[in-house]
């Protein structure tokens, strides 16, 4: 049986290794938000939030210090920071649609081997919310999806074709899960990294499309 899966913090840490100096990064709700805790110390990036701020600081943990006029798209209080800029919503999405966001980190319900992403309609709900995720999925220069490799009840989430309605077709570049890191390529999904103790067979057994093994296949670096 496979080893333990990574926890959310560790998945966020792995995603944050993709942050490169000077990048403009948008983090979706949930695990993506946690990535802001793991920016490598020698890297300076600017976070964008759909509701109109760029270059804000960390999430405020003490409600006494929180200000309802300084929040991110997940309605978490954000700290002000030197160099931060503020703008209205059409400008904020000019940034997204215009390709000015270098990296979007999004959650996912399903991802296909073509990089299709489905993450806006929760199973069993009649109505879902597109929010800003669709714009980001279509237009960010690079899209990383971070999510559990399977659902809590063991359903596969990485599929040949998504069964849930799409957020955007062929938009995902990299998938980071609690067991693996996979790149979406024209040839298919390339397994690049695995959680400690996992084998490629074990990852494959939780993944519908056939995984291509990277010649550089290695354990996920956790430091």
């Amino acid at each position: 049986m496979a080893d333990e899966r990574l926890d959310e913090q560790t998945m966020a840490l792995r995603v944050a290794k993709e942050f490169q100096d000077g990048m403009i990064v948008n983090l979706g709700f949930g695990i993506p938000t946690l990535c802001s805790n793991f920016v490598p110390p020698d890297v300076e990036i600017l976070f964008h939030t759909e509701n109109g701020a760029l270059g804000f600081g960390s999430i405020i943990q003490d409600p006494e210090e929180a200000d309802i006029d300084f929040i991110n798209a997940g309605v978490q209080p954000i700290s002000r920071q030197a160099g931060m800029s503020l703008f209205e919503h059409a400008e904020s999405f000019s940034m997204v649609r215009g390709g000015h966001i270098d990296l979007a980190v999004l959650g996912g319900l399903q991802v296909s081997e073509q990089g299709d992403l489905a993450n806006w309609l929760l199973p069993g709900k009649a109505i879902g919310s597109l929010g800003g995720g669709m714009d980001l999925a279509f237009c960010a220069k690079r899209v990383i999806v971070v999510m559990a490799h399977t659902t809590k009840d063991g359903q596969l989430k990485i599929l040949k074709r998504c069964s849930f309605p799409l957020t955007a077709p062929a938009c995902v570049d990299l998938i980071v899960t609690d067991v693996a890191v996979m790149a979406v390529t024209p040839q298919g999904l390339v397994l690049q990294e695995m959680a400690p103790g996992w084998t490629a067979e074990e990852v494959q057994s939780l993944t519908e499309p056939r995984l291509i093994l990277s010649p550089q296949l290695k354990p996920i670096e956790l430091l």
Partner: protein
Amino acid sequence: MAIDKVVGSFDEAVADVADGATLLIGGFAGPGECPSCLIAAVARKGAKELTIVGNLGGWGTNLFPVIRERMRNLIAFPPEFVDHGLLVERGQLKKGIFSYPDAPSPAMLMPVERAVAEGKAELELVPQGTLAERIRAAKSGIAAFYTPVGPGTIAEAGKEVRQFNGRPHLLEPALGGDFSLIRAHKADRYGNLVYRGTSRTFNGTMAGASTITIAEVDEVVELGELDSEQIITPGLYAQRVVVRPARLPPWDEPL
């Protein structure tokens, strides 16, 4: 006569919001950026068959205390806050045009989810950036535009698809209103507006996108106090300004 856009009360400010009106309601998701007093005044007026354009579907008065409690360890939401979910709860909604209509948890239902399920209201779901751009197009006199966002998804339904630079785009029409109800920080008598922090959001976008824009502000300052370089919404986009009290009264009290 001197230009003076300041109106004495919220009830007066929305007195001409008629049945069937289209309202663009500012805000994003939290209480900081929501024109609560204007929404409450529309609830008191009772205008019906409204089309409401906004980001969220609206928490309403039943769900908001639950959300407030959930958020307690992160941020203190003022208990008197109301959003346009109030109008949905009171049956004033005919059609909602929203980006984020459903509750963030399957265990909750936003008022608009109920209203749609019961066949009492229609819903148009719009990607957030497309929503913002459609509103901006109305302000800017652009009839429609082609966006790369949405082909191959639910957003494509009923839309013209056209290729530009080898990539499919959707034709999206302008989305203006009869009234924009927005929240700002300070105003002057010309209707010049500044916002505070992330409260600019859809408020800044909706200013000027309706026939009448009404701004709910913390303070009206003397002409000239707002630095010309720092005015975010030039006064020609706002027709009325109302000052909000420091503490919100219950929504059903005249204000």
